[in-house]
């Protein structure tokens, strides 16, 4: 017997997608996803634009076999990976930018600001040691408190995959923290 397409799939295929509408509905999702994937604040707007340039070019190839959010997440992953490579090349530049801003912030307690900056930098260092997929799951679950089934829906993967990525990410996170502690310990003892 021929399978009858569900109401949902018929309606979905009939939805007229254009890049403006996708932007209207998903810009915030893309923005947050890029942050989850470690795109730094300075690069966020460019990365957002890059994602929608790809969406504009590739939207006709989207076949509704997955959720739009899943498809967009894939694009964000590639854009974030490219951003990560570029950011690595200009890491020194970013560090000096951060230092300058720290010094140029007269309203804040410089010592407190420095501690916050250091903590944020350490966290970023540890998160950067995770693969992007694991990092996204880790951030969503551990930092944003999004439940695993919702993450699975968003990424278009089974819940089991979310748990598996999370478990590996936790182990890697713990190892990276330990490495950092050892390194700091060595520095302190010198």
């Amino acid at each position, binding site marked *: 017997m021929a399978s009858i397409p569900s109401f949902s799939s018929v309606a*979905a295929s009939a939805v007229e997608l254009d890049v403006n509408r996708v932007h209207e509905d998903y810009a915030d999702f893309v923005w947050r996803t890029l942050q989850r994937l470690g795109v730094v604040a300075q690069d966020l707007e460019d990365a957002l*634009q890059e994602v929608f340039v790809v969406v504009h070019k590739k939207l006709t190839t989207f076949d509704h076999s997955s*959720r739009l959010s899943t498809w967009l997440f894939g694009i964000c992953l590639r854009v974030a990976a490219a951003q990560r490579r570029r950011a690595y090349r200009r890491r020194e530049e970013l560090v000096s930018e951060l230092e300058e801003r720290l010094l140029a912030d007269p309203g804040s307690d410089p010592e407190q600001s420095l501690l916050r900056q250091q903590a944020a930098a350490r966290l970023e260092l540890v998160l950067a040691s995770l693969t992007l997929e694991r990092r996204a799951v880790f951030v969503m679950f551990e930092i944003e*408190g999004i439940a695993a089934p919702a993450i699975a829906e968003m990424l278009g993967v089974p819940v089991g995959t979310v748990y598996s990525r999370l478990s590996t990410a936790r182990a890697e996170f713990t190892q990276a*923290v330990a490495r950092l502690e050892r390194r700091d310990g060595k520095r302190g003892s010198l």
Partner: protein
Amino acid sequence: MTELEPWRQSGEAPREALELLQHAHSPSALDARTRARSRRRVAALSGVPLAAGVMLWIQNVALGAVLGGAGIALVTVPNWRGQTREATLAPVASASAAPRVSQRAPVFVPPPQPSIEPSSKPLETAIVARSTTPEVESPVAVSSPTAPSLMQEAQLLERARGLLDANPERALEVLSEHQANFARGALQLEREFLAISALVRLQRHAEAARRAEQLRRMSPQSLYDERLKQLLDGASSKP
């Protein structure tokens, strides 16, 4: 599979990891100014928005015409075929059958044409059989214009459904758009259910429960009862 708890709640993580996580922030939302700048750039990407709008309008009109035409054809073809048969039979039909033919005429009177489906039934049987078939409403009363509306309704709801996990707030906006355009639409119950799902995702449980109660009143003992129960029970069992 047992539900995992975030480290910060379970406290099972190494102390150093927990300390580091205390400095973590959730990703920030897209602010209005950046969104507006980005929207302008995206609009520029998509060429001439007006042309795109016109194309979309033409597509929708064409779709409406096709669906409307199909709906009208579905109603008028049997009617026309009946008329044709009667027109063929009328000269030889009994006097008692004649008024029935004239009563059916006002809505749609096709020009006399040769019968395309000659009846093999005896004359009287054919007329009696026809008179017992349910009356088909006139094309004016056919709901063909609602087919595109239904499609639009479905499109809006499908759009909202796709947004539920990624952006429940936006999903609610799309559902409000549905409510504004199709307050008493054919899919209003589904709209309400999706709205409740979005509210649950936004942790607006009291509002979700209130709308669920309204939905139950709108449609007591419907298929939504069980889905609502699962949705709200699932939400209340989460921390």
